[in-house]
């Protein structure tokens, strides 16, 4: 049953992604509503799927990478649906929904049985949830940075098309970028702390220098520098946009580290 709901969700997110991408180049009120409707419907079935998974009980302690990615995807869509009620922000869907869709696809592609950590520590889900919420913040910052660069390029090259009409003003995107990082950063910090604790409990060491931990720390330091740079030396606007895109690449590498570690763990 859970699987069916996931598959429906996947289908809806896919259709939503396609519709939202068409929305970028075509001005149609109707189409935007359809896209929003698909995202909303997908979110509903996704919620049902996650709830069913929770209720099924004993799986809870087995926090897998798949579940984490599914939660990440769900949170992204939630953030978008809340944001879409505001001016300028409907266009976020054209960027966030593809991201949510791809995250959900990754859960289907990756090997099914790969627990993140040995289930000795019951509270590992706290670490995962916090880290994922931090990642949602960085994902929105990444999307804002991407949109900033697109809008900047369009303005510089004097192209006034549907896309430039739909994309929000530069200043708005820059502030969205900053706020998303400011929101994501504390979550990541807590996520890393709880991760270290769970590592201490399960592996006996706070830091074992595996790829996941290394990339997580690098990412954390990187975003800290980005935040400080804005205040001190004016790393904003275009530079901030580039930096957040690079930072998100760090996040993705952390994920890769998790996958490598998990598959290594499952092999051993």
């Amino acid at each position: 049953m859970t699987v069916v709901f996931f598959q429906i969700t996947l289908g809806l997110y896919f259709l939503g992604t396609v519709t939202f991408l068409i929305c970028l180049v075509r001005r149609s009120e109707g189409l935007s509503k359809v896209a929003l409707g698909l995202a909303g419907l997908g979110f509903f079935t996704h919620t049902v799927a996650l709830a069913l998974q929770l209720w099924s009980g004993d799986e809870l302690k087995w926090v897998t990478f798949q579940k984490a990615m599914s939660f990440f995807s769900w949170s992204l869509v939630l953030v978008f649906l809340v944001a879409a009620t505001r001016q300028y922000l409907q266009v976020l869907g054209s960027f966030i929904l593809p991201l949510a869709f791809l995250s959900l696809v990754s859960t289907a592609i990756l090997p099914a049985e790969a627990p993140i950590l040995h289930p000795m520590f019951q509270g590992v889900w706290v670490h995962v949830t916090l880290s994922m919420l931090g990642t949602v913040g960085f994902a929105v910052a990444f999307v804002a940075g991407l949109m900033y660069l697109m809008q900047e390029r369009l303005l510089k090259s004097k192209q006034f098309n549907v896309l430039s009409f739909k994309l929000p003003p530069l200043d708005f995107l820059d502030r969205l970028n900053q706020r998303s990082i400011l929101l994501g950063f504390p979550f990541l910090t807590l996520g890393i702390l709880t991760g270290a604790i769970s590592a201490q409990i399960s592996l006996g060491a706070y830091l074992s220098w595996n790829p996941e931990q290394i990339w997580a720390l690098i990412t954390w330091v990187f975003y800290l520098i980005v935040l400080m740079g804005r205040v001190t030396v004016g790393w904003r606007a275009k530079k901030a946009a580039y930096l957040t895109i690079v930072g998100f690449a760090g996040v993705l590498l952390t994920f890769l580290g998790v996958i490598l570690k998990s598959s290594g763990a499952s092999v051993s």
Partner: protein
Amino acid sequence: MHIITVGLSHKTAPVELRELLAVPDSRMGEALQRLRTYPGIKEGMLLQTCNRVEVYAVVDQVESGFSAIQEFLVDSHLSLSAEQLLPHLYWHSGERTISHLFRVTASLDSMVVGEPQILGQVKEAFRLALTHNASGVILNKLVKKAISVAKRVRSETRIAENAVSVSYAAVELAKKVFGNLSARTVMLVGAGEMAKLAAQHLVNHGVRQVLLTTRDPVRARSVANRFQGLPIPFEEFRSEMAKADIVICSTGASHYLITAEDVLRAVRERKNRPIFLIDVSVPRNIDPAVRDVDNAFLFDIDDLEMHIEQNREERRAESVKAEVIAHEEVEVIQKWLQSLVATPTIVALRKRAEDIKQAELAKAFHRLSALSDQDREAVEGLASAIVNKLIHGPLVALKSATQSSNGSVYIDAARRFYDLDMSGNPQGGDSCVSTPQEISDQAKLNPSVAQVDVRPLVDPKVSHESQK
């Protein structure tokens, strides 16, 4: 009765002539009252803007109405002769008048399609016509409809969405960079007309502070006062540029006043906050190399023109939708006019039947003077029964005609069959031929029926097709 318009616009007349034709506001009342004194003009409205002068009128006859309005226009502007005026005029009647009024009000006939002023100007012309009792039932209904059509066009199409003037394009582009313009600062370097206009638009959109510099400090102070701005010595404006979010440059200088280094320094000082520069001067005063400076956005006059040209194209595309709306609404108003024409036809038909009956009865009783009262009643009853039964069918058809799309055919047929147009059609097109005797009979029989003949308003194509 016919609806006509005579006028000229930017499409038919040069600005010199349009200027001459404009009636000063103070004399509009007098002009409207005078318009009504011309023979055959029942209702009138005078619409004038800087791009058009038009007289709308409800008249008895189209041709004489046209010449009356022409005469009115020449009389109102004594400096102009009829020969000067005639080649620039256009004349519309019936459906084309309605369609023209709708298109004008919806800004489809404007020089800048979609510009918003025309609606206000039509409203003002209508208000004046109402105050001076120049308009009546038909014009009132038409103009009100035209205003609602214009509103519908504005809400259902994107015809008026984007900027199509250079000064307003500056605002639109500034919003693409800054979003909200409140708490922003604009700096004017030089004070050309276009720059001042752009600054005014920006202030209207919430810009907080205006900094201003010109080579002439006295002039700088006077222009700064207009915007409650702050004059800056010309020698220092480059170092002050970092304070400005938007820089508008319009001087007569023949060289670059602002170089890429100046902008780079300003952006650094602004800690990479974007700066938006507009160069409306020709030759250009801002080095085009500024385009390569990160977080600086430079638009020169050509860029702005290109931007508004794209907007114009979009407006043209949207105007197609707007034309469809206007066309639909013309059909709606025609139905109303049709009902206006059906009612008097019904009244006229009843009256005609009654008159014939009375005339024939009078003749018969004259010959049959020996009839008893009872017999007379019986004969009268017989005549009434025949007449009523004969006209019952046509009356029912006419009543339903107001609802149907080809109602004009029935009305036209009834008027021909029963010979209700005793004066004949002024254009001579479709009235039946009457003998002098018949005409004098009709004049006797049908003196008081208030006829409103608005048949030419009804789409002639419809009636022709139906007649086939």
